[in-house]
């Protein structure tokens, strides 16, 4: 009898996987969140805007690769020149894990290093797990209709060398430009590379 109960428990578990995986071409799941400045947003509320989601962790060498020389800030500035576009940087490091920041630290981090629209602390990991964010960085591009158009790595060269940044194709900028000009996004899904997102155990 215990075995049977266990079997039903398993069926229950199967229907609620720990990791969601969003699908390119499908509507991006809605999520309500508060940024470090206390402003409330939701993915659905951004309808009419292109939304770029960036998972970040200041302690991760792959994130460091993009921030130590201001490369990511340049990408953020470039992206936000596209009309009606927002870039949301999300830190899903759980309390006590690598990259977990206090509100003060996060504000300082954001104002000194970032040119994105806003910065979100997701210590519960709910945002990250809803989108199936696996690595830092892990990027998502959502179009004005709320459809996910790209997910995966930030660029084409998997390395921790900042010298490689200029040699690589930036998939996020490419996707955003394609959406903006109405051309089809060429590369729609790649394997993200980087450190694991430091979710709570």
């Amino acid at each position, binding site marked *: 009898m215990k*075995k049977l109960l266990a079997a039903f428990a398993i069926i229950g578990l199967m229907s609620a996987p720990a990791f969601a995986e969003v699908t390119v071409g499908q509507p991006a799941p809605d999520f309500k969140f508060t940024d470090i400045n206390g402003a409330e947003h939701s993915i659905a509320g951004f309808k009419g805007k292109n939304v770029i989601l960036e998972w970040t962790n*200041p302690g991760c*060498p792959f994130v460091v690769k993009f921030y130590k020389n201001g490369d990511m800030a340049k990408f953020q500035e470039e992206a936000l020149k596209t009309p009606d576009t927002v870039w949301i940087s999300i830190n899903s490091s759980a309390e006590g894990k*690598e990259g977990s920041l206090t509100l003060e630290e996060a504000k300082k981090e954001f104002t000194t290093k970032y040119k994105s629209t806003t910065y979100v602390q997701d210590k519960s990991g709910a945002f990250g797990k809803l989108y*199936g964010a696996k690595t830092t960085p892990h990027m998502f591009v959502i179009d004005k209709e709320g459809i996910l158009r790209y*997910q995966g790595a930030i660029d084409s060269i*998997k390395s921790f*060398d900042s010298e490689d940044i200029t040699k690589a194709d930036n998939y996020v900028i490419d996707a955003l430009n394609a959406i903006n000009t109405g051309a089809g996004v060429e590369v729609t899904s790649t394997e993200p590379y980087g450190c694991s997102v430091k979710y709570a155990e």
Partner: protein
Amino acid sequence: MQKARKIPFLLAALFLFSFPAYAQIGANNEPLVKVTLIAENDGVVPSQNFTIGIRQDITPEWHTYWVNPGDTGLATSVKWELPEGATASELKFPTPHKQPTGDLLNYGYSDTVTILSEITPPAALKKGDTLTLKGTVSLLVCKEICIPEKHDVSLELPVVEQASSGAWASLFSATRKLLPQEHQSAMTAKTEGDKLVITIAPLPIAADEMVEEAYFYPHDGLLIQHPAKQQLILTGRKATLTIPTNHTRTTPIENVTGDLWLRNAMEESSYHFTARVEKKQEAAIVTPPAKDEPVKKIEGGEGIGFLAAIFSAFLAGIILNLMPCVFPVLSLKALGLVHKAQKENHRDVVIGGLVYLAGVLATFTVLGIILIALRQAGHQIGWGVQLQSPEFVAAVALLLFFIGLVLMGFVTIGASIVGAGSKLADKSGHVGSFFTGALAVVVATPCTAPFMGAAVFYGLTQAAPITVLVLWALGFGLALPYLLLTWFPDLLLKHLPRPGIWMEHFKQFLAFPMWAAAVWLVWVLAQQTGAGGVLHVLGAALFLSFGLWLWKTAIHKKNAWAVTKRILAVALILFAISCNLNQPERISTEAVKSEYYESYSPARLAELRASNTPVFVNMTAAWCITCLANEKAALATDKVRKYFKENGIIYLKGDWTNFDSDITAYLKSFGRSGVPIYVFYPAGAEPVVLPQILTPDTVIENLSTGGTEK
């Protein structure tokens, strides 16, 4: 020593924690991985290629990555600075190990790994020269956090006329064994919905029939869900792995390449896997085995197609009607029909039959869902597994005892509601039909009919909808005889005497096969749990019947005493059920000592096969009537004993009364999901599977012609 080495890095890690603003490991910190460039030989011979290795000694608990790092991480890479004219081959990585972190899975190495590369030296080399190889190795080393490291490595080798193996030669030969091996086996890949299905046949590993575990490490990081369970099915010498595909992939899967890792009791090894994805196929169509497959066609075994499986399941369902535990249920229904056909219109009778069918199908659906869930959870499942649960055996025994009481007339179910003619009665009658259907399935499960083994095995190894379809075919077969009777009641009525007291007597008589089946189940339970379980189930029967009797004495009375008795009766019945479900710990079925046979183990079988000894394998279970009948009628006879003795055949017996993964794997390898199975291994020849019904003569005939005929 090692601890001391670790401390600076833990400090470095802490540094990263507390000062998250782009801290980097300083150049003066000792790295977490020691990287050395080594060569197999002690010198270079002009115009001869040679092998070098990048050896990593990794701080304990940290790991570096394979070509496909899995969900996160980064593969180790190298940027060579070679002398003009020299080239280096692509890196050859040993097959990695799984490195789980939280919900994610990575592929990599801990402790130590050597990655090989073949060097083609420059054309103009003279004896006495020195060849210098240089490179920068980039690697990511992770534990909870990740540290990138860059190592400049170099190696100087003298140019010689004749090279001899250097100090590292044994490390190189050990490393080569960890690389994926070449093989001649046929490989296929296809997608079925959101699953990738890959096959390899025959299995390249030695002792392939005993493969216990397999894992496919794909080169492409977007191919599969890395942390998902990879389901292995062995049919004969063919292995099938079913793996959930990565949902984030947006391009079609064309080529599937990677390392296929296999493990059996004796060894583990890995093999190159490469296959082009076959054009989309209907999930229902089974790929026929490769033409030149050197596998003997096993009776009722692999390759049974969808239609064949459906048909044999259907046939098996019909046969189930004749089994000792199902027959009384059916008889009862048929008798009910005699009454009904006289009192009700034909339409109601037909509806009753359809409701009975619905009951059967619904119960099989529930059974199917449970089996699929167990399979998803990674359990090895087979038909009859439910009987490996003492709780299930005890519950069915008590149920059969109770049905016997009903048949005897000791208990009248729903006497108050089966008022003739009322609308309500019609409805209750249909509810009754539904549950009779469910009951028929429950009591049928212990009986494995011929044909059913292969069909059910097929069903259990296919996608969930097919599993359910096969079970439905079985259910439809089970319900069909009664359905036919409801449509053509005259078939039965013509041949029966006029209704009368004989019907009551016949009904009472049917209690005895029910109780006989209960006696048998109690005996099975005794094998599983010992005397303790017997006490529980017989005690439960005692309390149940006492409770029922108490209820009867109080029926139709409304005074306080009667109410008390009724409450007591309910309490007793509930106590009986809980007592029955609360079975003592199962006893281990210890290896039976017998002069005639030995206990089966994969190792013993392999040993005997290796020493060219003829072996007879019998897989049995206490709850399998066919098995016991065969043993009694054939295997235990003097004739067969004598034949075994004279021909030096070793008799191995496996007991599947309680769950045993070795035996389940063995059954699977022959395309079976239940016992019995009888296999004869002639010395140095392919095994022969015997029929499921044995006589002394069929045994001896099969054994004497084994390996030469068919």
